[in-house]
């Protein structure tokens, strides 16, 4: 018997989910009896996601893995799917309190805390810092921002006004905002993007770094960036950032297939599966790049 499993990202225009998709596809191929369908709203918009879930319920797919765009909205959709006999798990972004069977992903609060701790480790003496976020509506990003703040609370780091800025997942805008933040506060000591956006525009990002090369080399500006996509690791290797903290989207995709299959087979699965975080600095970057 073959199973049709669907992974529904929050937004298809985010390269993060492409990695999760690749993981899912690879695992589905290995398993043989599983088909992985990847489909979600193009932009991050909850109502569209809910409609897509509805369509899959109609199609009677065998399992859903959802990156939740809005908790309350998805809680209802998950209930509908469960009522139709379709098992649902969440990945990347959770809907705690819903009827989802399991969550695979990162603890976003921990993610933020890790980013903050990395910064603190690199520069315990503190200074002014700013955060770049993706969109004001995203709960997981908000949790990361809170994590960063919590980690830095009580230290000598203070957040500047106007932080976080929201780049709407647009790489170009993220770089522009980093430049603007630095211009607005010339003694800004650190910028912490809670997603990899600025580095998705490698040349723009390099141009920004090169302009501030002196300060970075002198330790006056520290860049701790979330996510560990290949291009980000390369940038870190070449000295364009001080540290990265990454999730493991590829693993999320793989685990989603495994978990759904296990559920289908009637096995018991753990409710929360953390895929873990990669803390990357100059020292271990080569190892991650392989």
């Amino acid at each position, binding site marked *: 018997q073959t199973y049709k499993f669907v992974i529904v990202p929050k937004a*298809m225009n985010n390269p993060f989910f492409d990695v999760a998709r690749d993981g899912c596809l690879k695992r589905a191929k290995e398993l043989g009896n599983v088909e992985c*369908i*990847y*489909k*979600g709203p*193009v*932009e*991050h*918009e*909850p*109502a569209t996601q*809910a*409609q*897509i879930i*509805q*369509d*899959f*319920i*109609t*199609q*009677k797919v065998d399992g859903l893995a959802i990156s939740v*765009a*809005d*908790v*309350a*909205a998805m*809680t*209802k959709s998950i209930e509908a799917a469960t009522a139709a006999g379709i098992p649902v798990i969440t990945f990347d972004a959770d809907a705690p309190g819903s009827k989802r069977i399991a969550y695979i992903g990162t603890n976003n609060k921990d993610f933020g805390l890790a980013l903050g701790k990395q910064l603190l480790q690199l520069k315990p003496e503190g200074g002014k810092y700013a955060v770049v976020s993706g*969109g*004001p*509506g*995203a*709960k997981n990003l*908000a949790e990361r921002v809170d994590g960063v703040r919590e980690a830095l609370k009580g230290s000598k780091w203070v957040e500047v006004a106007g932080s976080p800025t929201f780049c709407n997942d647009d790489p170009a805008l993220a770089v522009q905002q980093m430049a603007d933040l630095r211009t607005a506060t010339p003694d800004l000591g650190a910028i912490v993007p809670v997603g990899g956006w600025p580095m998705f525009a490698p040349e723009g990002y390099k141009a920004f770094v090169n302009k501030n090369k002196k300060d970075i080399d002198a330790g006056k500006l520290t860049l701790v960036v979330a996510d560990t996509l290949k291009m980000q690791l390369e940038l870190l290797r070449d000295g364009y950032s001080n540290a990265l903290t990454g999730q493991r989207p590829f693993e999320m995709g793989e685990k989603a297939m495994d978990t759904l299959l296990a559920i289908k087979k009637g096995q018991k699965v753990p409710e929360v599966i953390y895929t873990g975080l990669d803390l990357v600095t100059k020292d271990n970057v080569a190892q991650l790049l392989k």
Partner: protein
Amino acid sequence: MAVPLESPISFTNVGRIRWWQRGIFASQTGYVLLALLGLLIAMHFASPYFFTQGNMQNVAKNFSFIAIATLGITFVIITGGIDLSVGSMMCFSAMITSMVMSGLSTPGMPGASLFVHLAADGKTVVANVPGLILLVSILAGLVTALIVGLVNGFCIAVLGLSPFVTTLGMLSIVRGLGYVVSNGRGSFPGGPDADYFYALTSGDLFGVPAPFIYLVILAAVMAVVLHHTSFGRHVFALGGNEKAAELTGIPVVRVKIEVYVICALAAGLQGIIVSGWLGSAPANMATSYELNVIAAAVIGGANLAGGVGGPLGAIVGCVLLEVIRNGLVLAQVSSYWQQTLVGVIIILAVLVDRIRSRIT
């Protein structure tokens, strides 16, 4: 001023207009409807699930989720204007409604004591008058929409700003305010009346989804207003020739303000209904829906240059977009090709209208 009247002239060179040269059969709406039928048949062959009752209910519900807003914007489009703030407006109204609903249901919040009290167990919140909170909160959402509509209308009709720029600014303003009031988090309907709210928005009557019923009622009202009241006539006149409308004494400023208010109210109502179905009013709800809504109206035959449009067209446009969306998911088209196909089908659907120039 009665003058002796001759019998009216007979027009010897005018034949009878045959049925297929008249009304809907001679309009873009009619031809897009034709394209829609073709699409439905194609979808039936592409997926066995398409014509199941459950899926039809879904389709009916989903398209009603933008159709009410499309009805509203059709008024604006007929006058030759545009409103880009509908998406933001949907979100903001929904948010205000949920916030007021939860706020009034939380004992301790200012004013809440007028509406709720704690039950004997000290925990359950009970409404003083069942349904009152619902009423007040929906009104709050609609009043918000009304205010935004008035501001749009004022800038466009009285100050004479371009509708595109004004409503683009308003798109930004209203979305931003949504983030500000909810601190970026969105809001949830809650309290003792939430169940009524869900029943009204995502319930159904004899299997017909509630939003669909509202849509049908509103569309019927709109058809009557457009074609059988002087307001409707003035809306068309404005779109046909604004200068002439002004010269013949139509209260252009008032009519313009009214259409933007109607549009904002429709968007607000739409947002409230969607949030009831979602069970939440997230801050990024309905992002960039304005393009869908405008597209639905235009595909259904409304003309952005003004003077043409109607409720049937608005609905046909919405159904078409929803059938494309739903059908492609059901047909399991690769996600990446889907977007391309959506575009192709939209263009093909309006292309069908070109047969018209062949046969007339």
